[in-house]
């Protein structure tokens, strides 16, 4: 068993070296030079998460290109393999296992959906492979990925802003601006992301004296949301909270506006991509959410990122692209300082994990450091939809 493992590691090294030399070239200066750092990303390109996954992928690929063109990580080239999990939990876990065991990737990024993260993160933890969540915002992602067990997951990190921060910030900011008295919550009960968001809304509203008139639960694959919207509108709330993802928020907004409701939509991370804003169109105008990133933010590396992204893909990046881009930069920085051996994979994974805890770089999300619980602490941007597929800034909460 041991010998076989050694052989396969050797084979991997030979292959990696071959790839590295064809891809990078360059002069050998240290142990990194000519090597390849293999990373894997489990993203939802199709299925419900297909609204977000492709954005993360584009952001990541951009970062990989930039790093490799600038000489790589101490001379080592990054190879990123993006695989689709079709937004399915079990497929997500299988893809992750293949990447960790068969492809022998150094570290993983993803998965896109919180629903899949609860299957993938404990797996990565048990196989001692660093994994960086780039879009999951649910509860119990970090550090307690094995919830209800409370011992912290050492290998799980995230660079995405948890809804436990974002939703209360959003509600607080709107309450200060407009003093709403009543609200209705629409929540997709069979989705972890939406359901977690709903719990946070329910726990938060009382603080700001908002009376939650009704909680309307539905299933995410429902044909027609009109009956739920009719119920929500009939309660005549000041605010409708929508914590769902994918196509659902836009559908609710359009239907509610048609039924003549003129109040305020407040939402979660599911709002923060151009597709949602574009689909909602005029109906979404003014809908507010808290975002981890804003197109026009003035952090040093943001303008470069936005320009490079536009050049590469022909449209503006969104929050998910920024988080994916930052994710690669974070891992690259850790890899640079981790003193990797490129021969002892378990050892390298442990070294990378340790180095990730001390990351301190500039990203489009702002100056980036992990907290002691492997989470982010960053500026929160309250943004609203502009009715044309974009967002405008309302507040900045540092």
């Amino acid at each position, binding site marked *: 068993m041991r010998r076989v493992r050694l052989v396969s590691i050797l084979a991997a090294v030979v292959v990696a070296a071959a790839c590295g030399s064809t891809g990078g070239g360059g002069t050998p200066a240290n142990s990194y030079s000519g090597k390849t750092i293999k990373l894997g990303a489990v993203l939802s390109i199709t299925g419900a998460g297909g609204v977000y996954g492709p954005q993360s992928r584009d952001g990541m690929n951009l970062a990989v290109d930039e790093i490799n063109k600038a000489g790589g990580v101490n001379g080592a080239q990054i190879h990123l393999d993006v695989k689709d999990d079709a937004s399915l939990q*079990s497929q997500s876990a299988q893809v992750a*296992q293949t990447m960790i*065991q068969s492809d022998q990737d150094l570290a993983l990024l993803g998965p896109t959906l919180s629903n899949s993260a609860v299957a993938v993160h404990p797996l990565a933890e048990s196989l001692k492979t660093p994994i960086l969540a780039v879009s999951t915002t649910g509860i119990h992602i970090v550090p307690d990925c094995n*919830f209800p067990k409370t011992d912290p997951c050492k290998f799980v990190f995230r660079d995405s802003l948890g809804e436990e921060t974002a939703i209360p910030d959003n509600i607080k900011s709107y309450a200060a601006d407009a003093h709403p008295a009543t609200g209705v919550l629409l929540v997709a009960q069979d989705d972890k992301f939406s359901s*977690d968001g709903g719990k946070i809304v329910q726990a938060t509203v009382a603080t700001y004296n908002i009376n939650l008139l009704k909680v309307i639960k539905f*299933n995410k694959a429902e044909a027609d949301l009109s009956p739920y919207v009719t119920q929500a509108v009939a309660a005549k709330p000041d605010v409708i909270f929508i914590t769902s993802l994918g196509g659902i928020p836009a559908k609710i907004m359009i239907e509610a506006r048609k039924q003549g409701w003129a109040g305020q939509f407040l939402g979660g991370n599911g709002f923060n991509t151009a597709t949602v804003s574009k689909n909602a169109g005029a109906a979404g105008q003014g809908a507010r959410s808290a975002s981890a990133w804003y197109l026009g933010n003035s952090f040093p590396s943001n303008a470069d990122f936005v320009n490079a992204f536009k050049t590469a893909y022909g449209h503006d990046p969104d929050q998910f692209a920024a988080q994916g881009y930052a994710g690669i930069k974070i891992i690259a920085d850790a890899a640079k300082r981790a003193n990797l051996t490129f021969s002892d994979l378990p050892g390298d994974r442990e070294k990378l994990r340790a180095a990730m805890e001390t990351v301190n770089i500039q990203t489009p999300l702002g100056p980036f450091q992990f907290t002691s619980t492997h989470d982010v602490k960053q500026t929160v941007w309250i943004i609203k939809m502009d009715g044309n597929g974009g967002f405008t800034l309302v507040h900045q909460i540092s």
Partner: protein
Amino acid sequence: MDFLIQLFTDPIAFWSSHTLLISQIGINSILASSLFVVLYSGQLSLAAPGFMAIGAYASVLMDIYWHLPLALAFAAATALAGIVGVVVGLPVLRLRGVFLAIATIGFIEALSLGVILNVPITGEGLGLKNPDADPVSGIYIVLVSTAVIVFLLWRLTKGRLGYAWSAIRQDELAALSQGIDVPRYKLIAFVISAIVAGYAGAAEAHLFFILDPNEYGVPRTVQVLTFAVLGGSGTVLGPVVGALFLTIFPFIFQQAGDYIGVVSGIVLILVIIFRPQGILGRGGFAFVRPRWWPRPPVSAPSTG
């Protein structure tokens, strides 16, 4: 292709790097065998994912709340699936063909959308965390039980029960007139199928860290049906072959990349057109058997 190359050049590394996939093949084989039992007795029941859900949730809940040893939790959950099998099986016994199929779809959807999503103990839409899952070494339990279940079912089809099922499948009226207690044998098949599916659910639940209520709906049942029909439901090995083929399919055709869905659809249509009785067909290994090999007598066309 890397996948196949590794399988043949370095099987041990293949094994250790694909444990989850191999376990999934085992689980899918057990599920396909569960469907085989009902199809073999002439019942197009699509209830497997429902019983799977019962096995999965019951075993994990008993583990979490009562800290039952794994074997006991498995046994109790499987038994519970069997009991529910009797309760569901009795009223639907007189339904046939598509009617039975749709009634069982009604059962699984009512169970997953109506019950699991609305009972707090199941974690509702969030799914149920199973912190004691073992994705790596669970493979041994899965593979051993796959072999045992397939062997037992094969023995059953060769016994009294199997002949009764076969007779019912070929002509229910004729079977009745020969004094076969049709409802009894159909119920037995239904319940055995429920037990096997319940076991598959319990086993799967201990591979993954989370039970997702969405895994036990219609897409799953369509998948299992595809295993059984594509593999051939005339012998117990047919559905297993179908499960094996379809589970590793995306890995063999990795080059298809994003177009894997298109490719699988094309392959599905081609296979079923050229092997309408399934890959193994009705005569077991008929397609690998040389022409001069003595052939089994041709049986009457099935209604299933």
